């Protein structure tokens, strides 16, 4: 379970101090698929980065299974079983796809296991194993490899930041199936940042984040119908209709 208490994150801007996360309180129960949604710039990605330790809160605390992890660095949180898939993953010159997956797994992964992860994210695995994760790969390919790196890890909490971004419609359908399987079999808890209806439909719980605060939180069946009506201002109506981002 992750508990965020009075969490704030402020950055300096030309207009002065900007509250990205504003005294936010939130409990993320374990064993659930939780989808964070809301408008761009509302604080969703920052929240995930604060949980991962990539950003440090200006104030407030983060608890993980009852332990205060606010002062732990990224590496220490990763070793506790927390993982994060970037919205825009970096590329690595000289590092092969198999090498990256092995680093993620913390061991030298056999070829068949790497292939299994790659196939599940819609890549023809043998074509990719020995390719470098560099600029020769498209944005969509790098994104899918990024998702595969989280699959290769034994994670307690897996956070995926807009997994649909940059992925074509056909692959997106496959990805939704993959997340369904992940929720049942692998990660204990999954947190997905998304604007996509089909991703939201996977959720046990939906949370709308806007203006650095939790606007609404609850079971998917209760929250989702409200999104297009009273909370429509927090969402992108086009994506809610199920149109994948290109």
């Amino acid at each position, binding site marked *: 379970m992750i508990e965020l208490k009075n969490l704030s994150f402020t950055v300096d801007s030309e207009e002065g101090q900007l509250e990205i996360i504003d005294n936010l309180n939130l409990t993320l129960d374990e064993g659930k698929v939780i989808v964070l949604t809301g408008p761009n710039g509302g604080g969703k990605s920052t929240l995930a980065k604060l949980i991962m330790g990539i950003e440090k809160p200006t104030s407030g605390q983060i608890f993980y299974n009852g332990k205060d992890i606010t002062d732990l*660095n*990224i*590496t220490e949180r*990763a070793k506790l079983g927390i993982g994060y898939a*970037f919205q825009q*993953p*970096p590329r690595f*010159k*000289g*590092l092969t796809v198999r090498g990256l997956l092995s680093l993620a797994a913390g061991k030298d992964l056999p070829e068949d296991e790497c292939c299994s992860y790659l196939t599940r994210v819609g890549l023809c695995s043998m074509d990719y194993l020995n390719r470098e994760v560099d600029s020769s790969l498209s944005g969509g390919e790098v994104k899918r490899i990024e998702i595969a790196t989280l699959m290769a890890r034994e994670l307690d909490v897996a956070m995926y930041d807009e997994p649909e971004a940059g992925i074509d419609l056909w692959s997106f359908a496959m990805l939704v199936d993959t997340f369904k399987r992940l929720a049942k079999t692998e990660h204990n808890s999954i947190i997905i940042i998304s604007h996509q209806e089909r991703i939201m439909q996977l959720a046990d719980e939906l949370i709308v984040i806007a203006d650095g605060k939790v606007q609404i939180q609850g079971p998917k069946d209760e929250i989702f119908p409200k999104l297009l009506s009273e909370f429509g201002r927090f969402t992108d109506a086009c994506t809610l209709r199920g149109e994948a981002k290109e």
Partner: protein
Amino acid sequence: MNILDFKFDSTLTPVDRMMIAEITDLTGIPDGALSIRKNGEGLVSSSSANVEIRQKTDKPGIDILVKPFTKGEEIHMPVIITEEGIVETVYNDFFIGEGAEVTIIAGCGIHNCGNHDSQHDGIHTFNIGKNAYMKYVEKHYGDGDGNGKRILNPVTVVNQEEGSYCEMEMVQIKGVDSTYRKTKVNLAINAKLYILEKLMTHGDQIAKTDMIVNLNGEGSSAQIISRTVGKDNSTQIFYPNAVGNNSCSAHIQCDSIIMNNAKISSIPAISANHPDAQIVHEAAIGKINSDQLVKLQTFGLSEEEAEEVIIQGFLK
């Protein structure tokens, strides 16, 4: 010493064997021609049916003659210096016969535990015959805990005849205090050149490279790639120059990672003396991308481990 009298395990000291393994991966007597030079003298020299190694009589060094149409032969020629105060200039001339295909695995390691500098200047001239293929792998390495510097100044001249292919991989990753590398390549009709230089400097090391590639023949081409990492207070200067004197193509690519207080100058130059010469250069110097570091840390690697993975991949 005759090859028959040479025993890899007993003629060489443990330090010798470690140095040779570092620069050539050799752990025993290889098949094919072999020349080992140690502390300013030829230690062992052995020819094969197709490759003759001949000692020079007028100056230090050897001539390496590869018969035309030799196929798939490897030539190993490590140089090691394990004493302080040795300064040598060695002249090695290679003659690769028409249509031959050879791989030359060279390298120089200096183990200096003393207070006097040790220096090896290897002057190599490669004459690559018509339609011949040559791959040249050279690794520089230094270690030892003395204050004496480990200095390597290679001079390489390559003359490529029509239709020949030359691939050169030059690696210097650790322990060499000062290097000034000079390389000159002349390409004839349809000759092709590929050069990959991988360099990492640390401490107060200095590495300088001057390279000129003359694309003289119609249809000749060259690709020159430099990947370097500069750490601590080290200095790197890389100056490659591709000159198109005919209808030809060339591409120079220099990528460097800069860390700590290192200084890196990457100055690719291109010149065209023919309207159908197509020559491109690109150069980039920058820090390690912070997203790369963070990504690897989310796998549980420490910042230092992540940095090492990124550098090793970059120099792979």
